[in-house]
């Protein structure tokens, strides 16, 4: 009953008018950035990171997480109504939802996406509530060698497994690690790569990298290459599901949740795999007449399943973030940065040292999901209006907010020049298909992983054998190797099979 009591205490904190207001503003803002093209939850949270200087930690974490999962709801609206998905997570929704919208069923698609997100988000929150304390209890027993290997696992999956090209993923990760090296070394206090520039002694702010790579690069890319792209918008029909829609959606939601949750729990993040997996499952399980709807006039299962999987993954990703301090996506990496701004390092101790904060945050997830359902079902028409903002004005406006985020963090005009340079890097990366998530994850996790590595080797008295002498660390080494080798073997086998 401990968990129940703690959760109730969390609700008591989360339900104060001020925190409710932060939650509502976060959810609304999250929906807005999810709907708007060119700006996602990672940038939105990054641009608002300066508020950590003034706003109380509970309020700001509730606010940021509202943005985090609000964007998932908003993203599906854009991907159903426009041809361009707002963020990668809605790519699958875009395929099937668009087909539905084209055949005049936009309303049903929007409804199943919103309600599915709610169902999956709520179930996943229950799982976070029940499991996170246990994971934290278990994680207390992990030492520096295990932590280092867990981070190595996160690096491996984010760079080598999730992207298409391991080479480009690795390059991006190394760039992030290099950016993380800049500044004072946290163990010896020695300056690294500062080039005599005093601003660089403090290191490069994560806000700069995130805002530069995502917001500024997006604007520069749009002006360079996408000026002439014309988007056609599907017509919005009444947001309503028939009895048959419900009957087809409910099992798909539950299956999507079941697929998405485990993917969020393991430090191998990314929503691409679970959403595609859910889509494939729905297609496979469908009866012949429904199967004909897939990719044709649009099957509701193809929206319901992946949307649920998406939200379940995103919510469950809070487990590794809160209990191990390991982010698995851009946005969770920046949430980790927000914790660090308060001098708090998420990890197993968080549940004992900052119990009130954690439980208020978890309680706010329940509240936020209800708010988002209301924001996204009856009020969907309002959000759709955001799509009418002309692109030039929208993108130029984003630059103003980018300035606030980048300048507000350290009050240094030097950062604004750096921001532009990072924006240029982002354009190159996008043009040549380099993934950006490894940069952000590498930059945030790099210094932490380095510290754990050095502590681990110190424990082993200078010997790297320390990674092979403990049962948990050996297991992790095996997992890292398996994650690296298995997909390649599978590819090799299927190639061999098709050749013979």
């Amino acid at each position, binding site marked *: 009953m401990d968990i129940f009591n703690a959760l109730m205490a969390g609700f008591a904190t989360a339900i104060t008018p001020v925190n409710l207001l932060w939650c509502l503003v976060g959810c609304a803002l999250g929906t807005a950035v999810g709907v708007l093209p060119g700006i996602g939850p990672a940038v939105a949270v990054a641009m608002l990171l300066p508020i950590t200087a003034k706003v109380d930690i509970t309020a700001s974490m509730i606010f940021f997480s509202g943005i985090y999962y609000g964007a998932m709801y908003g993203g599906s609206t854009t991907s159903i109504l426009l041809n361009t998905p707002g963020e990668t997570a809605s790519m699958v929704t875009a395929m099937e939802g668009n087909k539905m919208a084209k055949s005049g069923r936009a309303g049903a698609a929007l409804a199943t996406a919103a309600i599915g997100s709610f169902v999956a988000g709520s179930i996943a929150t229950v799982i976070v509530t029940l499991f996170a304390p246990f994971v934290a209890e278990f994680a207390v027993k992990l030492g520096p060698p295990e932590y280092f290997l867990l981070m190595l696992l996160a690096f491996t999956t984010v760079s080598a497994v999730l992207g298409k090209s391991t080479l480009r993923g690795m390059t991006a990760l190394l760039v992030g690690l290099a950016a993380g*090296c800049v500044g004072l070394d946290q163990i010896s206090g020695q300056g690294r790569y500062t080039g005599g520039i005093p601003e660089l002694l403090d290191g490069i702010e994560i806000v700069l990298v995130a805002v530069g790579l995502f917001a500024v690069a997006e604007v520069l890319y749009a002006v360079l290459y996408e000026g002439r792209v014309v988007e056609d918008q599907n017509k919005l029909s009444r947001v309503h599901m028939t009895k048959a829609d419900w009957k087809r959606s409910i099992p798909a939601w539950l299956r999507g949740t079941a697929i998405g949750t485990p993917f969020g729990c393991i430090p191998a993040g990314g929503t691409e795999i679970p959403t595609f997996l859910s889509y494939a499952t729905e297609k496979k399980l469908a009866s012949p007449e429904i199967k004909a709807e897939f990719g044709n006039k649009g099957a509701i299962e193809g929206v319901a399943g992946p949307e649920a999987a998406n939200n379940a993954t995103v919510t469950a990703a809070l487990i590794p973030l809160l209990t191990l301090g390991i982010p698995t996506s851009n946005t969770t990496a920046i949430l980790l940065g927000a914790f660090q701004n308060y001098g708090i390092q998420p990890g197993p101790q968080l549940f004992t040292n900052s119990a009130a904060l954690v439980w208020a945050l978890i309680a706010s997830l329940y509240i936020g999901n209800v708010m988002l359902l209301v924001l996204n079902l009856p009020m969907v028409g309002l959000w759709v209006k955001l799509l009418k903002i002309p*692109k*030039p004005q929208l993108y130029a406006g984003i630059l103003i907010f980018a300035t606030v985020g980048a300048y507000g963090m350290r009050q240094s005009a030097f950062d604004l020049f750096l921001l532009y340079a990072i924006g240029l890097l982002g354009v190159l990366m996008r043009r040549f298909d380099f993934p950006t998530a490894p940069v952000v994850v590498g930059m945030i996790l790099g210094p932490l992983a380095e510290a754990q590595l*050095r502590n681990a080797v110190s424990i082993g008295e200078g010997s790297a054998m320390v990674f092979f002498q403990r049962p948990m660390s050996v297991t992790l080494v095996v997992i890292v190797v398996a994650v690296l080798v298995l997909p390649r073997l599978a590819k090799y086998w299927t190639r061999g099979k098709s050749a013979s």
Partner: protein
Amino acid sequence: MTTSDSPAVWPQTLVGAGVLLTGLALAFGAIGISSEAGYGGVGPNFLPWLVSIGLTVCGAWIIWEARSGGFRELDPPSGADQAYWPGFVWVSAGLLLNAALITTIGFILSCTLCYVLAVQGLRRASGQTAVNTPRTWVTDFVVGLLISAPVFWMFTKFLAINLPGLTNTGWI
């Protein structure tokens, strides 16, 4: 995938060369970092060396991929094949002038200037006609002010974040 005579070979090679040079530059910087390892065998120069060697190898590999048939598993980039450079210059001018002037003329004016220049570039990129009329300039200026002024007040007054003003009143 691109063939060896495709126009993408040179840009891709340049990207690889950039990565390679970054790796070498980082290695050069790593020489100056002490290897004092304390109790452990790993000092502050370990990660810099690892990263610089890694980037150098990746750079060489990228060059090799570029020269031997182009990047593997490459998604064709979205948007037009040819870049629209005039628009890029407008947006860049906006961003750089903003960085240069923000402490002198204050957040509101500096951001409005950035907005006006960026929107010019983006309008031109989308092929709008009549971008150079006084009407457009005035509208853009007013819209820029209407976005940056409330943003400035919201952040300085409600959230107490320091943003530079033209005066010390906190309103402009």
